[in-house]
């Protein structure tokens, strides 16, 4: 395996005395050397940007005479504009990084840097002259471009509270917002909008908490106390996410030696560029979905739309209307008036080693492993899309089951929801006409009831003799609470499969089963995970339940074979194949319940207009005029041309390359950094 990844290390030999080294040796060796010399060492990986097709990694210069950091906010495009300006022996000296200092030039003197001003003068810059390996710290040049915009941007009003408990959160949130506001001015201007939305939400939460405190002082009930607790939990979430955004997103800013990154293996330059990549990835999806709010569509339109939907899970058999349209036929979700999301709150994106890929109300995290292994299927940014889809489904569930602030409801399911479920059940027709919002809610309840029953089938003889017992509403509520996670996961799977994986069953199955072998739950509950994946690729086929299962099973077996052929193996695959042989009856029963729900989610939540926005291929230079995700391709020898690339399609294309073992080089860390650098641009 060729090693393209390099490390730029700065050893502190004394106060203001920095010895630098560019090395291809393991960073552990560098750290060991620092321990032996009793010196503090900071380092970051740097990647040679201009590789030659078929050639190995470019040579490291024998002597480093200078290091120039360029804080480009669009390094991919900067590389594209630099390339024609550079001599062939200069190309090997340009590196990209995961830090805010996204480009590093070795051995370019200041005169030559000035020559390149057309490409880089709009970004901050720091230049270190080096003599015999020592940085001449007193000659370091720092440049920040003058602000060209003189428009007055409205400032944010920081949250404040005099409540002794809330004060802690308010102060922490305010301090983080201040740090981010200053940093975004230079490094991520458009993210100031996120801060505005977060401030508005934090202020609103504090205001509502204050009102609740007054009510509680007047002997209010347990409901008010629960709401106050939930508000505090929300403020803690905001506070924690902002803290991460500060430590990860702002370290590594100019001057480089002034702040140490909290990531020890990126301690010199930080990971600000990688944070920008996952933020841009998240924003691209949020923008696409905000164009048509699921909450608004459900509450404004589906709540009035009288449609016949199948109420009987046992009789559900799909049909042609469920099949993905091949023409330009509009989906239910796209019909009716515009329903943009009102004041959407962007998710704060950061990396986490402990949480891995995860979504919460105010944040989304990518596994820290992605920093070095994004180009491997288990750590691909495609998994981040699954988490972002949780936010969408959170909104859908809220529209179906959510309470409003002024509700006096104490229970998980309201009386009205029970009544609507009752009348849905009581209707004689198998396809009950009811407003679609209620029908969808009832389908989720039926699904949750079915999942509960899966573990306890009755023998035919007993079933004939047993009397049907009515279902207590408390039990229905309990079953909903217990199994709604499964309904949520199925809805997320559909959104992921349809919008992100462009309805491609084989790549989808390969991707999720390459990642699921790395985590514990599929080993603990293989039947559930297998069924989830089968039901997902069955949705939108229009096939009856038997044929849909058979086809999904074939896809699964084909995907596992392809994974094995590409070198991804796991004993879990054998276990799953065994399940398909030995427990097919259980699998089919589970599948039928899942198919009932996910196929109807497909019918009412697929959206051609959002899908087109997710693809964002019309202006993407890598799409080369095609608007089909299947045609999307890229090369590490091609550089940016101005327009940004579609983050989701780029990440998917990279995943395909990995699954087909089709990457141009075999350095996982370099490829991962390349992907993050392109998306950050």
């Amino acid at each position, binding site marked *: 395996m060729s090693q393209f990844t390099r490390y730029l290390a700065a050893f502190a030999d004394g106060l203001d005395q920095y010895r630098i080294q560019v090395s291809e040796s393991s960073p552990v060796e560098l750290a060991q050397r620092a321990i032996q010399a009793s010196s503090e060492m900071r380092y970051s990986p740097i990647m040679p940007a201009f590789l030659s097709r078929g050639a190995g990694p470019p040579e490291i210069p024998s002597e480093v005479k200078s290091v120039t950091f360029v804080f480009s906010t669009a390094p991919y495009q900067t590389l594209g504009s630099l390339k024609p300006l550079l001599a062939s022996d200069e190309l090997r000296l340009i590196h990209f990084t995961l830090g805010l200092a996204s480009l590093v030039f070795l051995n370019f003197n200041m005169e030559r840097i000035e020559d390149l001003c057309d490409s880089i003068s709009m970004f901050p810059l720091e230049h270190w002259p080096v003599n015999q390996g020592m940085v001449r710290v007193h000659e370091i040049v720092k440049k920040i471009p003058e602000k060209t915009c003189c428009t007055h941007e409205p400032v944010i009003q920081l949250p404040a509270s005099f409540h002794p408990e809330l004060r802690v959160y308010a102060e922490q949130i305010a301090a983080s917002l201040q740090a981010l506001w200053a940093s975004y001015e230079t490094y991520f201007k458009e993210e100031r909008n996120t801060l505005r939305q977060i401030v508005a939400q934090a202020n609103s939460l504090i205001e509502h908490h204050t009102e609740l405190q007054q009510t509680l002082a007047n002997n209010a009930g347990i409901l008010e106390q629960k709401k106050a607790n939930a508000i505090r939990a929300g403020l803690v979430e905001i506070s924690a996410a902002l803290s991460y955004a500060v430590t990860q997103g702002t370290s590594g800013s100019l001057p480089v030696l002034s702040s140490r990154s909290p990531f020890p293996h990126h301690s010199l330059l930080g990971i600000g560029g990688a944070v920008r990549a996952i933020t841009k990835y998240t924003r691209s999806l949020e923008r696409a979905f905000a164009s048509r*709010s699921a909450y608004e569509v459900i509450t404004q339109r589906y709540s009035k739309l009288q449609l016949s939907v199948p109420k009987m899970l046992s009789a559900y058999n799909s049909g042609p209307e469920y099949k993905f349209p091949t023409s330009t036929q509009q989906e239910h979700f796209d019909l009716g008036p515009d329903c943009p999301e009102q004041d959407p709150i962007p998710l704060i994106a950061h990396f986490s080693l402990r949480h891995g890929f995860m979504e919460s109300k105010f944040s989304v995290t990518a596994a820290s492993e992605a920093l070095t292994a994004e180009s491997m299927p288990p750590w691909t940014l495609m998994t981040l899309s699954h988490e972002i889809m949780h936010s969408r489904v959170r909104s859908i569930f809220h529209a179906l089951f959510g309470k409003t602030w002024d509700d006096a409801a104490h229970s998980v399911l309201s009386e009205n929801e029970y009544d609507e479920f009752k009348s849905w059940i009581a209707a004689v027709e198998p396809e009950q006409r009811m407003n679609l919002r209620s029908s969808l809610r009832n389908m989720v309840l039926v699904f949750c009831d079915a999942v509960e029953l899966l573990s306890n089938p009755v023998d*035919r003889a007993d079933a004939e003799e047993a009397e049907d017992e009515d279902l207590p509403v408390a039990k229905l509520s309990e079953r909903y609470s217990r199994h709604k996670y499964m309904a949520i996961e199925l809805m997320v799977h559909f959104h992921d499969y349809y919008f992100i994986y462009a309805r491609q069953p084989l790549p989808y199955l390969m991707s999720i089963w390459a990642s699921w072998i790395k985590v514990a739950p599929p080993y603990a509950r293989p039947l559930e995970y297998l069924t989830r994946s089968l039901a997902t690729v069955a949705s939108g086929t229009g096939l009856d339940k038997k044929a849909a299962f058979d086809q999904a099973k074939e896809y699964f077996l084909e995907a596992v074979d392809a994974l094995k052929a590409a070198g991804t193996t796991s004993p879990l695959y054998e276990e799953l194949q065994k399940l398909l042989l030995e427990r097919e009856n259980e699998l089919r029963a589970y599948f039928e319940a899942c198919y009932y729900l996910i196929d109807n989610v497909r019918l009412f939540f697929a959206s051609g207009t959002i899908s087109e926005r997710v693809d964002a291929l019309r202006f993407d230079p890598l799409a080369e005029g095609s608007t089909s995700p299947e045609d999307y391709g890229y090369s590490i020898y091609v550089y940016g041309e101005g327009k940004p690339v579609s983050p989701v399609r780029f990440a998917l294309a990279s995943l395909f390359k990995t699954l087909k073992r089709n990457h141009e080089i075999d350095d996982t860390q370099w490829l991962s950094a390349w992907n993050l650098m392109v998306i950050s641009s």
Partner: protein
Amino acid sequence: MIGQKQMLDIICTEGIEYGGLQEIPGQQHGGRTSFHEAKRGTRSVEKSSIECAGPDTPCVPYHLRLVREADGTLTWEE
């Protein structure tokens, strides 16, 4: 993807369902079990405020069952 007003209502709903329990677990030992759903299990059903079925609890005339046939196949019946 979630609007300001909607978020407040979501927090309120979570207050009713979970009493204000935080969504992100405090995994003290940092062991990751899943990046898809397991960590969401902090709010397991035991921790939520589920109403208990008592003798006076109203019922819904809904009868779904999963029947095992003599040949081992499973059939949903309503």
